[in-house]
């Protein structure tokens, strides 16, 4: 049985079971996406977030429904944690008209603006300034919202990361910068190409920002850390950097077997699976095994239904290629 940090806050058994079930849905959706890719039903590429579930679910549990989230091309978990359904996500991956972005975005651009999930961005680091801009907007409008940028460890070496941190710090914006450090930028260990041990947190002093390195596989740890950072941001005390240590269960993308990762490292991290850690917490909270099993069953059925619905959904109308360039819905560029 895996150990959990006893220093975290008390969490209600019912809430914890809910977080567990969300993670279970994400895990099964990612597995389904993987299988559908292998079956040729998902085109292009996928960057699966299995293993990262606790970061998205824990953070979302600490945020207000009207807060803003900006994610990366490895962003299925963030879309679902903010309320996108497995069916909407899988349909998008499968180029169906019922997809989140009506088949115009794909795996790397899952977005659910109505839930404050303002996009998944496939240019590394590009969305950190956007999150700062959304935080600036929230401050200007006096709404008390915060904006969160989730990014990978690889993003910490690109200029936009540093430009965003500096300006967000200077303007004391209500922004959270949450790094999902899974130890590999793509195929290269982040430590081999970064001047500091903690690629996000160790940069914080340069911008006068507070930072925490946290267990990104423990949903309660993530929830508590994000709650602290959000409270700080809403209180006008500026941004926080969180570096959540986590690990990919799949490779970087597509069918990457991730054979560049040492076997003992993989084994060690898989033993700290976020779902296993949550199950340990549930047991410690006195939640009966049958309740956990029932949550697993509901998650499995939900994803099975989503796969079936996405498979059955129609493809896009060809005319949709020419809609939504402009706000008037069209694409006319000349008279």
């Amino acid at each position: 049985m895996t150990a959990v940090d006893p220093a975290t806050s008390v969490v209600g058994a019912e809430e914890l079971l809910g977080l567990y079930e969300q993670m279970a849905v994400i895990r099964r959706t990612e597995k389904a996406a993987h299988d559908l890719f292998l079956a040729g039903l998902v085109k292009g590429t996928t960057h699966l977030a299995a293993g990262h579930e606790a970061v998205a679910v824990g953070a979302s549990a600490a945020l207000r429904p009207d807060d803003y989230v900006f994610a990366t091309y490895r962003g299925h978990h963030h879309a679902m944690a903010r309320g996108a359904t497995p069916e909407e996500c899988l349909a998008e991956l499968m180029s169906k008209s019922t997809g989140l972005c009506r088949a115009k975005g794909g795996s790397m651009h899952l977005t659910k603006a109505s839930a404050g999930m303002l996009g998944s961005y496939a240019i590394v680091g590009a969305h950190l300034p956007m999150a700062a801009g959304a935080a600036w907007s929230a401050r200007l409008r006096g709404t008390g919202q915060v904006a969160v940028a989730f990014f990978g460890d690889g993003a910490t070496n690109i200029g936009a990361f540093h430009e965003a941190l500096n300006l967000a710090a200077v303007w004391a914006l209500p922004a959270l910068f949450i790094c999902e450090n899974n130890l590999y930028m793509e195929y290269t260990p982040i430590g081999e190409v970064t001047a500091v041990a903690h690629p996000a947190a160790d940069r914080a002093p340069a911008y006068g920002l507070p930072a925490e390195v946290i267990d990104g596989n423990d949903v309660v740890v993530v929830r508590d850390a994000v709650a602290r950072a959000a409270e700080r941001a809403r209180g006008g005390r500026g941004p926080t950097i969180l570096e959540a240590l986590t690990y990919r269960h799949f490779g970087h993308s597509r069918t990457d077997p991730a054979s560049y990762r040492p076997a003992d490292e993989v084994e060690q991290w898989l033993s700290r699976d976020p779902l296993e850690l949550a199950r340990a917490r549930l047991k410690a909270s006195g939640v009966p095994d049958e309740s956990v099993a029932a949550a697993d069953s509901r998650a499995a059925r939900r994803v099975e239904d989503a796969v079936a619905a996405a498979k059955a959904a129609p493809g896009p109308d060809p005319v949709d290629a020419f809609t939504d360039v402009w706000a008037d819905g069209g694409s006319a560029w000349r008279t």
Partner: protein
Amino acid sequence: MADLTGAGGTAGATGTASAASTTGTAGVITYREAVAEGIARELRRDPSVVCLGEDIAAAGGVFKTTAGLLAEFGKERIWDTPISEQAILGMAMGAAMTGMRPVAEIMFSDFFACCFDYLANEIPKMRYMTGGQVTVPLVVRTANGGGLGFGAQHSQAVENWTLAVPGLKIAAPSTPADVVGLMAAAIRSDDPVVFFEHKGLFASKGPAAPDGHVVELGRAAVAREGSDVTLVALAVTVPLALAAAEQLAAEGISAEVIDLRCLVPLDMAAVLTSVGRTSRLLIVEENPYQGGWGGTVASIVADEGFELLDAPVRRVAAACVPLPFADALEQQVIPTLDTVTEAVRRLAAY
């Protein structure tokens, strides 16, 4: 960066002028003053308009195109940023997606290269790739073009860079009144607009815009009527084409000058209508011939207006070399009165 208010000729006493001082409907203002005036009018009417950029607030902009805005609107509307072009455009985008109408300044259009991800991959694509879930109502203002001896990294006309990207609207006014009218349309647009202000025009003067003046994006203007040759121009090449037309009139050649005012939407109906009258077309552009916007105009005329033509379509554009520093060299590269008039003469005689 040094104070550049003298750029383009007489500096004028714009450094301390309040943006509010140029609201009269009569009189004459400079192109430079019109920029601040156009922004100020929208700041007054819409509280969601907010400005950000390098040196735009306390300093009033290196070209003084935002002079007076901080004094009238305060620090919560007019924001000085660090030299972080990616952050400027990225933040503008994030704010635009969440209820604001940011007006971002990139000091020199050459610096688009420092933030081109936002201009090429982020701002123009977000609405489309989310299936219409978000709008990005922002304006990216920038000082564009040569003629002032700033050398290869501060003199380029780069409107063709943005024309290459679907999803951006592009305005490039030639007169103070159009600066105000197009600025109003750009800021009110729910689509992202790149707004090219020409460095060589900042000191030029023209009639002030009337109150409430809005110039719809994508409507060209007939800057001078003529019957022999159509000159299609944009921004600084409009006064150049007008000067050429004036000179050629004395030689008995009647040139019509079309001021495109925008590249997207591109008013090809106006161009084709004019070519229908003149049967000859010269495109005068400051960006390089190779990949310049005139190539798009020419290809459409060749396709849809072939039977209107009595002569080949010609282009006068910048040479395909970096902009040199010395005036004597720069004049070899960018369009001049001599190169335009000579091209028109040859076309008229064809």
